[in-house]
């Protein structure tokens, strides 16, 4: 690991009276996938737009591969490839022409532009559709073409703003595969998403953004740990055992009961030992279980825990 590909400090942006970014600090290590997770309106796209020089911040500093977006935007643009939220594909051009155009705009020669475009079409499995107008492409193909456009100059930093929003499952897997390849090649990827599963699958590190602030940051594991660590989950064979089990487990911790699923969940600190003890206890009392195990919180639970206002949690 050699330093950071992107460093953001104290980033602020207001739109009129609306505060979109309220002091964002992020450091994205080179060669990793960094996931920016947050609900709609959290400030993900605003962050991306500042990072890619499309929008000027009100305050704060953003360095991309060492270049400052405010003072040296052209250098930033050379180091960054953007695939925005809406595929920036020209419908009237063919897949090849779309990529050729971007290559020419990077200042490449005609010969080199042709080679780069053909190569990318190959990598993104668009060769068969290369000479068809993009208007006839499926949503997944358009996305892949747009992603390919971000990679024309093989930039060290690639920014993908909600790359799989609105895609079918197969296309989503395709995009994930591409992201994996990118990192294999040493590229730093900043990915925004509202899909927790996506961040969990792809990102080495995740920052959770809400109301223009980073409210949590870490690896997927660290975030899950932060949300309360392990929990013990038991599913009873028969509902009529429930009162007896609740009595037996008293004192173990805060029991969460789902009667319809006949499920009891309880947060525990030393999961393995607790599981063994509980199983011994229930065996001794001849209580039949359908399922028993240790669960880690899903990223969904982490996310809801982090983004739900405290007042709402109390009343719920």
């Amino acid at each position, binding site marked *: 690991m050699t330093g950071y590909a992107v460093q953001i400090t104290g980033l602020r942006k207001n739109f009129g009276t609306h505060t979109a970014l309220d002091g964002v600090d992020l450091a994205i290590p080179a060669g990793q996938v960094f996931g920016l997770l947050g609900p709609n309106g959290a400030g993900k796209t605003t962050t991306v737009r500042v990072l890619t020089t499309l*929008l000027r911040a009100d305050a704060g500093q953003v360095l991309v591969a060492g270049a400052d977006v405010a003072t040296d935007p052209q250098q930033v643009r050379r180091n960054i490839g953007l695939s*925005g939220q809406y595929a*920036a594909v020209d419908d009237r051009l063919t897949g090849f022409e779309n990529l050729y155009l971007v290559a020419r705009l990077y200042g490449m020669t005609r010969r080199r532009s042709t080679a780069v475009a053909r190569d990318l079409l190959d990598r993104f499995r668009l060769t068969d559709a290369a000479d068809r107008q993009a208007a006839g492409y499926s949503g997944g193909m358009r996305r892949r073409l747009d992603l390919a456009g971000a990679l024309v100059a093989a930039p060290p930093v690639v920014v993908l703003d909600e790359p799989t929003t609105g895609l079918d499952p197969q296309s989503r897997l395709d995009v994930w595969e591409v992201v994996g390849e990118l990192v294999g090649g040493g590229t730093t990827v900043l990915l925004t998403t509202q899909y927790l599963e996506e961040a969990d699958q792809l990102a080495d590190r995740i920052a959770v953004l809400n109301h223009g602030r980073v409210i949590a940051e870490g690896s997927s594991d660290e975030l899950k740990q932060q949300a309360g660590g392990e929990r013990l989950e038991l599913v009873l064979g028969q509902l009529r055992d429930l009162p007896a089990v609740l009595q037996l487990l008293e004192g173990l911790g805060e029991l969460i009961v789902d009667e319809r699923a006949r499920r009891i969940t309880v947060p525990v600190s030393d999961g393995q030992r607790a599981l063994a003890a509980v199983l011994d206890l229930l065996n001794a009392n001849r209580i039949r279980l359908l399922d028993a195990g240790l669960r880690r919180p899903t990223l969904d639970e982490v996310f809801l825990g982090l983004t739900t206002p405290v007042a709402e949690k109390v009343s719920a």
Partner: protein
Amino acid sequence: MNAVSAIAQHSGAIAWRNLVGLRRTPGAIFASVLQPIMFVFLLGYVFGGSLGGEAYREFIMAGIFAQTVTFNAAFTTIGFANDLQKGIVDRFRSLPMSRVGVILGRTSSDLVTSMISLLVTSLCGLAMGWRIRSSVLDAVAGYLLILLFAFAMSWVGAYIGLVSRSVEVAQSLGLIWLFPATFISSGFVSVVAMPEPLATIAEWNPITALAGAARILFGNPAVPGLPQPDGWPAQHAVGYSLLCSLVIIAIFMTLSVARYRKATAR
């Protein structure tokens, strides 16, 4: 790459893209020629009968040329608004390319649209009895002057496209200014017959200048029944028209480039 050749490559690539797109949307070309065809025949035969017949039909051609290339500014406006809305301008802006290149590419490719509409308009005019009665050199100068004005109007159109908040707004904004701009002129009528202050506005209107200059360069005389002013703009129609185009280009190029830096997808 130095700055000038970079701008040339960038605007060339954008113009290529626009022209490839134009070739694949015949509807847009059709729209750009249909309107001048309609104006040639509507004005020529509907108004022509009351306003001087054959002489009037010859007189209005210069006005229709000026009006045609002015209306083509709307193509620039709508083209830009579309690219903004679709996020294509964002992609361009995230690339390390020259600012002016994207707009220059658009205004250059729209010049091709103007050439096509001028050609079709000329053919309609010829069919209606309009003739170029000057030298080849003057005729070429006439067409070049019209195309320079077309280029200037395209920069106005680009600016309107960049400030419009949506394609819908661009469509109405891009068209609405064209009517007063082209009708308060000597394009189709006598400026002298207008009340003040319209007469003065019309006298100095760059479109009046272009129509007057085209009449001079094509050798088309004024209609006796439609007296034209003989102030400074009319006496120096060619030079004044040239000046207008250059000033408009300078102003709107500056405005558009400044605006482009801020323009974002909506």
